[in-house]
């Protein structure tokens, strides 16, 4: 098995239909996740990947159901463990195209620790966080990106916790591509996903994906009012500019806030550490036995 290698197939003239699994999404009508799903379909089509060369990895949450709606391979893991499993898949077979997906709770609450480390490893994975500032699947509790004072049944007096800033968190952890998008602009989102895939190293995209059922604050309208494209002059290679625009809450900026190019990916490091292949197994074992004799 270790020698199973393949060259991913790229076919430019694919259709979106080829990426659909035939399973009907179970999301509520009006859920932002539909837009993200469409953007994922379109991004994959744009890349022309064969569905079998792609793995969508997710956690647990409404958003994390996405892989079931796609004809690619998928791994719907457990809550918060999207990153470790995506890491394992990429380390297991660096030729696979791995897209990670999931909710804000999955990524930043229970998965917060793994997020930091996936970023600092600079794993060549694009991670789209479907950020609705709420726990959708468990029916509406405060999430790490909810605003201070956000009222839910578990925080009836409003949450006291200051929101995590996903973009700054990614930058502080060494991520090399940091973007923000909005499910209400699925074309731009699809473009951003393509850029994230093309980027060598860890690409994080915080995608606002409203939950009309449980979050009555961060709605489509809210983001339409609040979110603007990055100004033309924004220099994504300048970490200080990126940090400053990530800090802004009014407006919030959409697009590639930060990108560092030319950095080695985790996969590069692994490959460069190799001093042999499967063919060397007998030789290596002999040399070990000799060493111990």
């Amino acid at each position: 098995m270790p020698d199973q290698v393949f060259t991913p197939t790229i076919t430019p003239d694919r259709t979106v239909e080829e990426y659909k699994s035939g399973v009907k999404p179970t999301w509520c009508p009006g859920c932002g996740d539909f837009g993200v799903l469409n953007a994922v379909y379109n991004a994959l089509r744009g890349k022309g990947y064969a569905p079998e060369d792609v793995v969508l990895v997710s956690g647990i949450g409404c958003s994390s159901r996405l892989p079931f709606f796609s004809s690619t391979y998928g791994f719907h893991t457990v809550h918060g463990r999207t990153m470790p499993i995506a890491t394992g898949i990429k380390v297991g077979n660096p030729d696979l195209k791995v897209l990670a997906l999931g909710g804000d709770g999955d990524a930043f609450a229970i998965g917060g620790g793994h997020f930091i480390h996936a970023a600092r490893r600079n794993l060549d994975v694009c991670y789209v966080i479907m950020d609705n500032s709420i726990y959708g699947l468990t029916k509406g509790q405060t999430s790490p990106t909810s605003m201070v004072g956000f009222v839910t049944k578990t925080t009836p007096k409003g949450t006291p916790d200051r929101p995590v800033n996903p973009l700054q968190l990614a930058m502080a952890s060494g991520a090399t591509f940091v973007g923000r998008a909005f499910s209400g602009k699925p074309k731009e989102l699809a473009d951003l996903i393509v850029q994230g895939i093309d980027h060598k190293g860890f690409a994080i995209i915080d995608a606002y994906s409203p939950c009309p059922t449980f979050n009555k604050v961060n709605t489509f309208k809210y983001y339409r009012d609040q979110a603007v494209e990055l100004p033309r002059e924004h220099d994504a290679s300048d970490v200080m500019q990126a940090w400053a625009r990530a800090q802004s809450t009014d407006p919030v900026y959409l697009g590639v806030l930060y990108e560092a190019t030319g950095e080695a990916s985790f996969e590069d490091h692994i490959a460069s550490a190799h001093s042999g292949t499967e063919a060397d197994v007998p030789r290596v074992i002999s040399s070990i036995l000799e060493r111990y004799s």
Partner: protein
Amino acid sequence: MARQDLVIRIAGEAGEGVSITGQMVTQATARAGYYVLTDSVPPAEIKGGYSFYQIRLSEKRLRSRGDSVDVLLAFNQEAFENSIEHLRHGGILIYDSAELSPPESDRYRSYSVPLTDIAKNQVELALSKNMVAVGAVAGLFGLDTEHIHRLLRESKLAKKGEDILNKNLKAVDLGYQYVSERVAERASLEVRPSKLEGRIVISGNHAVALGALVAGCRRYAGYPITPATDIMEFLADELPRVGGAVVQAEDEIAAIGMVLGASYAGQKAMTATSGPGLSLMTEMLGLASMAEIPSVVIDCQRAGPSTGMPTRHEQGDLNLAVYGAHGEVQRVVLAPASLMDCFWTTIAAFNLAEEFQIPAIVLQDTVLAVRTESIPQPDLSTVNIVNRQTFAYRDAGDATEPGYDAASGPERYLRYQITPDGVSPMAIPGTPGGAYVATGLEHTQAANTSSDARNHAAMTEKRFRKMDGVLAKAPPAHEYGDPSAEIGFLTWGSTFGVVAEAIDKLAAQGIKAHALAPRMVWPLPTHQIDPFLKNKRIVIVPEVNYTGQFANLLKTHYQHVEFTRLNVYGGQPFSVARLIEAVVPNASTDVAATREEAAAHA
């Protein structure tokens, strides 16, 4: 007449001194053709504090570290105090006169050896003190110093220049000479080497790592923890040499997650940890069972609960390995019973994990993890490697062909197909037509989510059917002693070695006993245990824990067998004496119960 065996303990401050001296003696002894088996406190937590390295050598195969010490070499006062009660009556104490002056006693003969002094003034290299000690130990039982010289010449020391090397060689000789001129009991300490060839000297954890490499493990993810870290360190060196990779994860949850990811992607992968890490892996291991992902976890059991005593021994994680999951899962739990077994059992773990697409947990224990032993080089030609059944793309378009048919579309691939043996071929990402979503949610055969009652029942049964296959493929159990005996020891893990020695001792007293240690402790290999139990009047279940975890497991299956629990729980392994006592109460054996055990009997 030469002795059967000799137990030497080198004791001092935790750090390099004790272990370098111990390792050098061990290597040289093995080169000289002895069987040798060691015990030590695992790499200490923080530098300093008491530490020891115990070496037992013999002409015959050894199975335990030895109940009591024949020769104690004490580097300092604390070492003396902590070790002296382990020295047998009539044993020999060697100590560094620059560091301590122990009281005289009629329990032992003591010899001061000016280790520090010789190193400083005769060798003129203070750092050579350990080599003076090595020479002194060699001199005691007549180990040819040529073996030590050769090891030194092959070592890193040789690169430090002729002068340094020569000084170290000289240090060995001076130590040897000093002892051989002064220690009167030398003749009584002599042990004859065995003449076996082709042996390797390896630690239990390295044997595990080597087994993994041989079994086809090509990905390792782990988080450092005592006493498991050296498995990771071994593979960090070796896997890149064969195109593999080691990832240092941010914690144990991530480590097992990476293992599952790599295995999903088609690699054989594993992680190693000890109790706290295994606890953290509980949820992920449930996912492995549900999503049916082959995976291997080595748990180097140490004394718990919680952080417990990280450098001490206990067989305390069996319950967790077998029962540690919400809901009901399929897994196999194996426990090596000897050092050689660390190698073979790891291979068995990979084979079972692969064949049945389940997690396999290997319950390594501290005694085996840190033991170094001379063992026959494993015969690699007998290694059997099993790979998972994979789903292969068939573009025949022939509807009669079983399996995938390209024309029928991806629905035709049933990742979780209900099969007679419960095993369903697994598609590896990249395989056309095999796309599916691995999930921890209950799912249909086609891997879609489902809360349907009939489906859940059928899937539960499918998954549990795999356990029958696992049982059928159980690696053989260890057996020792006289099968006709009515006294039986049913045990597991490293305790088996002590039991085997106890059986020999009992046989010498004319008492017949028989021992069985299944290497597969879960599911219970009743086909191995049933015949053992058949003629037994007494079944003793010795384990190093308080509650009798293995005994309780046995009771869930054997309703009408009386199991006699025998437990020690001081963080130390069983002594042979303790086991004999269980059969022959108040027997006056020639071995003294150690302090630790005396406490742990209660």
